[in-house]
């Protein structure tokens, strides 16, 4: 008896419409993972660096021996500008300059300065793996010098022995030269500033998208759709009305969620760096662009949801249709969090750009770095995407699909435009 019930449940639930989105998303996640590559492999790679040793003393020799052993040195000369150019061209991490008097200062109980010129390519978590490896190397250099100090003479200041060098960081990130920050610090700061928007976008899309898809499912389940479609109201107004109503519900639900989430996030806030000091602060036009990006992405998401919602047969099947939206939102969050748009492979760039929700997630970071073309291009794309999706939704509303699951063929752009007017 119980076997019979299990068989019935399985047959009802294990259908193509519920299986297909999961298969597609599994393939997409697999491709994303394969394209990004293995974190483990990246960590084991030696960081590519250039070195300019202007000191030539005992301690710079120690530093050089540690660095040449544990890093791939592509420039070892005396011209800092030439070295920096070489590092840039070879996709290196940084140029380390050991100035004159480095060893002399240490002998004089003063920490030796190491100038590090970082080449930062992206602000995602995975983009900082190479610079993180170099940070570890600097620790190894310090350890080597400390060992030498202890071996040579025990009269050195213990504070010097524990920290024999200091760093002067300069980071070149896209068009900006940021003094006093390493890529790790800069990445952390950008992440702490821009993490909230992707989470807000994700919650908005999931909450509002779920509402609009469920609304379509409930119209069919409650047998109200036929009546609605015979009322004297344009199909485009029905579509837009459903989108806006769902957006309002989504905004309220996401706001409630974000109250709790922001409390949670404040416990992780550790950066007291003032963005304005580094030329990264956003102005009113920037915030306006972020707002427009967020709005168009929400509309794009909802228009996609309403198209998906037309496939819902009832409330339960509507719930299954929310999954692709959730997965797309998650893919956007993960990719933009782990990698910078500029540093991901071309295939992923196309995927990320094509997912409309990605654009507000990337907008804040892009605007901090004056990358207006990505943000404005994203807004234009999501607006066009929304218009196309609304046109598709209206066309479906004008067809037989909603009631019968099939479409009476009526080809042609003219018919599409005519359909929108109805």
């Amino acid at each position, binding site marked *: 008896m119980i076997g019979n019930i299990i068989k019935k449940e399985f047959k009802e639930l294990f259908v193509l419409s519920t299986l297909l989105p999961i298969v597609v998303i599994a393939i997409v996640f697999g491709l994303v993972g394969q394209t990004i590559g293995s974190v483990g492999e990246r960590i084991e790679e030696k960081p590519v660096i250039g070195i300019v040793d202007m000191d030539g003393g005992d301690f710079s020799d120690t530093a050089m021996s540690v660095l040449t052993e544990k890093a791939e040195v592509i420039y070892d000369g005396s011209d800092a500008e030439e070295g920096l150019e070489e590092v840039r061209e070879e996709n290196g991490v940084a140029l380390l300059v050991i100035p004159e008097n480095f060893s002399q200062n240490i002998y004089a109980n003063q920490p030796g300065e190491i100038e590090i010129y970082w080449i930062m390519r992206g602000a995602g978590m995975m983009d900082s793996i190479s610079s993180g490896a170099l940070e570890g190397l600097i620790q190894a250099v310090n350890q080597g010098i400390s060992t030498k100090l202890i071996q040579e003479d025990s009269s050195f200041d213990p504070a010097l022995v524990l920290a024999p060098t200091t760093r002067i960081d300069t980071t070149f990130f896209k068009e900006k030269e940021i003094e006093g920050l390493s890529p790790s610090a800069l990445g952390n700061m950008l992440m702490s500033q821009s993490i909230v928007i992707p989470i807000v976008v994700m919650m908005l899309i999931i909450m509002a998208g779920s509402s609009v898809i469920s609304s379509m499912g409930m119209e069919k389940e*409650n*047998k*109200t759709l*036929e009546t609605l*479609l*015979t009322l*004297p*109201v*344009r199909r485009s107004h029905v579509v837009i009305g459903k989108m806006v109503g769902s957006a309002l519900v989504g905004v309220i639900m996401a706001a409630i969620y974000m109250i709790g989430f922001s409390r949670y996030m404040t416990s992780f806030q550790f950066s007291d760096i003032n963005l304005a000091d580094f030329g990264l602060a956003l102005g009113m036009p920037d915030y306006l662009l972020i707002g427009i990006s967020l709005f168009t992405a929400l509309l794009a998401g909802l228009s996609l949801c309403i198209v998906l919602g037309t496939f819902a047969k009832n409330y339960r099947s509507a719930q299954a249709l929310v999954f692709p939206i959730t997965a797309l939102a998650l893919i956007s969050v993960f990719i933009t969090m782990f990698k910078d748009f500029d540093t991901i492979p071309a295939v992923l760039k196309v995927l990320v750009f094509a997912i409309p929700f990605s654009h507000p997630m990337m907008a804040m970071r892009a605007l901090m770095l004056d990358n207006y073309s990505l943000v404005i291009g994203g807004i234009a794309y999501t607006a066009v995407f929304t218009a196309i999706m609304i046109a598709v939704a209206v066309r479906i509303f004008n067809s037989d699909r909603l009631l019968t699951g099939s479409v009476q063929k*009526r080809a042609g752009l003219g018919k599409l435009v005519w359909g929108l007017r109805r």
Partner: protein
Amino acid sequence: MKAVEVRELVKDYGNFRAINGISFEVNEGEIFGLIGPNGAGKTTALRVIATLLQITSGAVTVFGYELPKEAGEVRKIISYLPEEAGAYKNLTGKDYLNFIAKFFGEGEKFQNMVQRGLEIANLGERINDKVDTYSKGMTRRLLVGRALMVNPRLAILDEPTSGLDVINAQEVRRIINSSVEAGVAVLLSSHNMLEVELLCHRIALINDGIIVASGTVEELKKEYDAGNIEEAFVKAIK
């Protein structure tokens, strides 16, 4: 002017032909019934006229408006009651009537519509309860109220008394008749032959997507030498 003119209407669902070249007319102030068994094509025909389905071939006009080109105009003058209709469960009955009436009028016109809807539904105090709590009969009465309160020029009613008990069915038939007296044309479908005899001025017998006979009840009974319309229908499809 004819309320409805259907000429050689064909409707296909993929490879399946649900309606195969039917023609009929509905006059103003008339109750016209499409009568036939389940799957005969009655609901499909009503859905086409109610602007819900596309036409495969043929022509349909409603008060001179051509479908599908003037579907927007048609929706302003029709009211459609599907056989298996529902109302929004989180709304009260009164809120549901308000929601529908707002599409058809404002101010006094709106108030009058809602008042008429309340009278037709006749749900007493329960009109202020959520639709979710209504019985099937109560929901149907609300929906009949919704369909007729807007003073349509053409009411398209698919099995209007479906799911109602004898008393409620009789009441709904009385409401339909009074609407017709006020000038509304009614196109209804039914497989309840008694109801058809009581209600319709003219009928068309439909089977397998084809109209096999049409006329007044008396004409059809005479034509097929039948004691009632059910017998006439059986003889007509043989």
